């Protein structure tokens, strides 16, 4: 039975009814506009942080650039000339402005190492990273939703316990460790898959499954908690009292309501998958952005690090906007101005 059996509930929301007088909630377009504006503000703030990575780095930037070009002992004149060429002698605000102007046009300057535009280098590798992140997210959702539904339907019985064990395991085994173990067991011992991946769809399954494991564990647990919350709610009890069966209450009423925190977690999780690409791509030698960035970090290739940070921020902010809009589309009360 799925109702809240508290013998005498407190008088729920006494007194709030007048506060919620009949007012038309904000429309979806208005919400989207407000949310986009918010995202833009966050993006501008983030761009300052991303830009500041370079001037904040220890050492003289001009000297760093020269060294990376192979000038071992740069002279004072050389440094001055580079300074002027890079615009480092101008005020900081001007430097930021010109950096942002170029960044918006896709010009993230050149890699110290390869001397090629960073934007192109990253754009070449981005599809592989996105393929991995999207596949992992979809796999995790495909596991998490049925698992949570079953656990909530059999709350307190063995399927629920099984999910608890799974989620504990998922939280305790970090993706890169699981990746290493899978690489050893599946690839080296069983001879399935390949040690060096080529970034194609046919090889995405192994790394995606590894990434999906922890996500599925976390998300299924979150969704299960949301489902149990919804099942103990007033509307679930009323639907039951109207004659709805357990399955209907679970799927028609509880699941959409429980999806709201779930969707938010998926959005954040997707952003984090792209952000966490360096580690898992190194484990699987996946030819994506992450792998490229790790090489760059080891050789202190600043523009590449900076561009990756900007990219991760863009993905992060975008996915949270997409999720918020999806939630607002699903859940009319959340469209209202807060």
């Amino acid at each position, binding site marked *: 039975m799925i109702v809240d059996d508290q013998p005498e509930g407190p008088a729920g929301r006494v007194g709030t009814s007048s506060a919620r007088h009949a007012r038309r909630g904000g429309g979806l377009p208005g919400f989207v506009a407000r949310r986009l504006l918010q995202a833009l503000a966050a993006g501008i703030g983030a761009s300052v942080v991303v830009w500041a990575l370079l001037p904040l780095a220890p050492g003289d930037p001009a000297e760093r650039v020269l060294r990376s070009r192979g000038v071992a002992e740069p002279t004072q004149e050389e440094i001055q000339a580079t300074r002027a060429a890079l615009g480092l002698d101008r005020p900081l605000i001007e430097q930021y402005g010109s950096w942002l102007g170029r960044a918006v046009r896709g010009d993230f300057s050149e890699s110290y190492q390869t001397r090629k535009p960073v934007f192109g280098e990253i754009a070449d590798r981005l599809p592989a990273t996105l393929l991995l992140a999207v596949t992992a997210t979809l796999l995790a959702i495909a596991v998490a939703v049925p698992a949570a539904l079953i656990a909530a339907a059999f709350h307190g019985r063995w399927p629920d316990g099984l999910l608890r064990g799974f989620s504990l395991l998922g939280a305790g085994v970090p993706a890169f460790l699981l990746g290493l173990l899978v690489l050893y067991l599946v690839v080296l011992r069983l001879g399935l898959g390949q040690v060096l991946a080529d970034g194609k769809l046919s090889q995405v399954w192994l790394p995606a499954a590894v990434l999906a494991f922890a996500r599925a564990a976390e998300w299924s647990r979150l969704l299960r908690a949301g489902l149990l919350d919804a099942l103990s709610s007033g509307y679930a009890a009323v639907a*039951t009292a109207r004659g709805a069966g357990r399955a209907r209450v679970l799927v028609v009423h509880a699941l959409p*309501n429980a999806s709201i925190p779930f969707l938010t977690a998926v959005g954040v999780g997707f952003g984090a998958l792209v952000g966490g690409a360096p580690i898992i791509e190194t484990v699987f030698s996946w030819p994506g952005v992450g792998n490229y960035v790790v090489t760059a970090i080891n050789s202190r290739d600043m523009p590449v690090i900076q561009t990756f940070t900007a990219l991760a921020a863009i993905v992060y902010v975008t996915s949270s906007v997409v999720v918020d809009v999806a939630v607002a589309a699903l859940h009319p009360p959340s469209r209202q101005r807060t």
Partner: protein
Amino acid sequence: MAQLDLAPDHSPVLRIEDLHVTYPGGAWAVRGIDLDIRADEMVAIIGESGCGKTTVARSVLGMLGPRVGTSGSITVSGHRVLAHLGERDRPKASERDLRRLRGRGIGYVAQDPYSACNPLHCVRRHVEEAWRAHRMRPKRHEVYDSLERIGIANAPDAAEQYPHEWSGGMLQRATIAAANAHAPPLLVADEPTTALDSAVASTVLGNLRSSGAAVLLISHSLSLVAGHADRVAVCYAGRVVEEGATAEILDAPRHPYSAALLAATPRRGHGLPQPLPGQPPHPSEKAPGCAFASRCREATEECRNTTPQLRDGVACFHR
């Protein structure tokens, strides 16, 4: 769809006999309640929180949890919701039977209309749930008619709005419309006006009254139900301590608890309200005697040792 036999000749509509309910952990929510409701009658169960009145409502709907212990019997229009222990020939209704009975045999109105409505569904979907729960698809006009019948103007437009956009009183009337969708012989209303402004409370109770069904009304206030209920059962610590016609109890309460309840509510011509001191006993306490004895000025040794039975509408040794 199997037929649900709701012939009107089963009188009374609701019969509760010797109902006991214990929650896991040993809380005795209900300790022996008998109640009959005839067709077209509105009967109110009155009491403080913790007296077991919501549990009675849940029991009637067969919506107590699986670990809740029950005994006694409940019959709604001749259908058994709960049977006496050991009554093998008349077993407890299966979950399937209960589901068929809920909504079509028993309508339910919850306390807070906002939490009673799925926030993701517009009001029309909420009313439609009455049909959809039984795998039926109502015509749009059926839904709008049921809303307009209960006094909601411009139903086709208003019903497309979401619960949070409606006022509490309006929304509670929409849930009454949904509860009444199949014209069930019995409506169970669990404090339907507690979450509402007092101005609309009377309208909502009027809506319930005019629904044509027998109504089991759960409330914490005697004066609130005064103008609406035909009969009142005053509940204390899981037992009915006094039962009778509303007007009689309002005019001359016989049980000390009813009198105290009445004195605690402000009424014209009765001076300032006098709050009832003390706390009701905890549901896990199983002391013998009248549960009200510790708060009663007239309590004697007998009250503390023997539980008074409901006789002639009142359970008190001194009446």
